[in-house]
């Protein structure tokens, strides 16, 4: 098998809104290698969010193919998609999306619960994921007892805990100040160096600049796709 993690061919996504047909994606073809660090950019309405939803297996394309880690996910339905989300994808959201009443540890354990991991192994793996993002001493804290940066690091730990094929981050610094953004981006950089495939969806050029490949979407189509090897180590 090739080292392609993501292989997308002629991906189309249409929505029917009342009498109108909205073409969010109009035939996108894209390949992402293992251990790439890709930023997907584009102005609002470019199809960036739709792309992110499809890449994250939250949505399925109207036409075209999407292969993730050797499986064709574009034809999958509900429960199969849930399984792929659980095993292959680690989400990091702009608004963190932690469960407010659960501790950091419990939040990180959540994907493992759905993966059917035993409680002992679950705890061990969650603790080590939290240690990996530098929160080994915060495992019993609830989200409201943590700073924005710490919350996002909990979310990153949660995304990593199932050892996903791709880490998919949607505007991960959108709710953070610049110093904290810097801290979070360093975490992504470090994970990438350790071999993790990272996909960032953002509209901020300076965030995208951290990636070693920038894909720009415009009007549902690929506008540009360039490597920036000089920034790869950022």
């Amino acid at each position: 098998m090739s080292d392609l993690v993501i292989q997308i061919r002629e991906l189309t996504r249409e929505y029917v809104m009342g009498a109108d047909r909205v073409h969010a994606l109009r035939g996108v073809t894209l390949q992402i290698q293992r251990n790439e660090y890709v930023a997907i950019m584009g102005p609002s309405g470019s199809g960036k969010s739709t792309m992110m939803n499809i890449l994250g297996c939250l949505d399925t394309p109207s036409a075209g193919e999407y292969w993730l880690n050797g499986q064709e996910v574009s034809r999958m339905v509900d429960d199969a998609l849930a399984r792929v989300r659980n095993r292959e994808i680690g989400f990091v959201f702009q608004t963190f999306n932690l469960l407010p009443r659960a501790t950091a540890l419990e939040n990180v354990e959540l994907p493992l619960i759905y993966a059917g991991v035993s409680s002992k192994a679950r705890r061990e793996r969650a603790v080590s994921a939290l240690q990996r993002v530098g929160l080994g001493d915060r495992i019993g804290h609830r989200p409201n007892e943590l700073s924005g940066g710490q919350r996002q690091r909990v979310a990153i730990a949660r995304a990593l805990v199932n050892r996903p094929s791709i880490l998919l981050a949607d505007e991960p610094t959108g709710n953070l100040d610049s110093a904290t953004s810097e801290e979070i981006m360093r975490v992504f950089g470090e994970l990438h160096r350790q071999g993790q495939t990272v996909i960032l969806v953002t509209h901020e050029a300076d965030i995208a600049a951290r990636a070693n490949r920038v894909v720009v979407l415009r009007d549902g189509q690929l506008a540009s796709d360039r490597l920036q090897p000089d920034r790869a180590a950022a």
Partner: protein
Amino acid sequence: MHFFEAVRMALRTIVTQKLKSFFSLLGVLVGVTFLIAVVSIVQGMNVYMEDKFANRLIGLNTFQLRRMPNIQTGDTPEETWREWQRRPRVTYADADYIETRLHTPALFSRFCSERLRVAYGSKSAKGIDIAGADAAYFQIKNYDLASGRPFTPQEVQAGTPVVVIGDLLAEKLFEGVDPIGKPLLIEGLPYRVVGVVEKQGTLFGISMDKFAVTPFNAPVRSRICAWNTLDEFHVQAANPASMVAAMDEVEAMMRIRRQLKPGQRSNFYLQTAEAALEGWHKIAAILFMALPGLVAISLVVGGIVIMNIMLMAVAERTREIGIRKALGAKRRDILAQFVVESATLSTVGAALGIGLGILLAFAVKAATPLPAAVAPWSVGVGVVLGIAVGMGAGIYPASRASRLDPITALRAE
């Protein structure tokens, strides 16, 4: 997802939202409380009626040959009543005939009673049940003597003026004095106390110890029995089966003695504890028939409340559902989570209801002479109903939650 995870999450939701949870549980709580309390009290009543009421008043495996029923529950039509009044009384001759000819082994006692005045020294009491009976009466009634002795068949035969008195009479009339051997005047006739019956307690708050028993042929007989007749003829068999056999025999003998034709109704009555309980059994049956309806109403209301609470919970936690789905929760995981949460909620309600119901039953026990008996089956039914109502009420909200689109759910505020 694991079942215990779901229960744990449900319990945490309940703990963090105590007041809301309490109100949502109220319906189930009331329903189950009602179930437990009513069943306990009715069962307690049953025990009480059978143990105390029937067996105390009539005696175990005992029936009484009478002119008409003496324990009446429910209405008697005027016509029936008049027919009873026209019946001939039971006579000495009837009693002798039965006693000498009955094949089934049994104990016998003639019995008459009247409320009369008794006196000891300067103290006197009115309205005391003075009975005339045979010596076997003490055995039939299961009377143990606290002191002294019962009277003997010889004393009955001779009509010796001796008397066995109840505990209350001993206490009130002979305050601090040992009544054995003391003279007691019954309607002015002099008797000697030979025994005191052990305390019998109360029945529906009425003392069962305000009585005196004299040998059947003793002088006071003329005051308590019409000439040559009896109020009752008591027959005690060894066990329920031989009681039935004895009743058949007595029935046949009496019909022959009274020359009744086949098809003609008997003009006498055989009073059993069973018959005395008939009225109570009717009441209990009505209660038990009404109970499922009443409980069902509370549980349906409780179920609707829980369903609403769960629909609210699903709406409030749409984002949580989105997060869970994004992290890999399948439809059945979300479904299970909310059904288990609903069932846990409802089971907690049922558990509280069981506690409250038992408490209520014991409160009734403490406040009244009725012994409340908590029926284990009613506790089981309570728990099962709690779980079932919760699951039933949770399925619709949970299936709505499970069908949410993760993208839309994640965008919810």
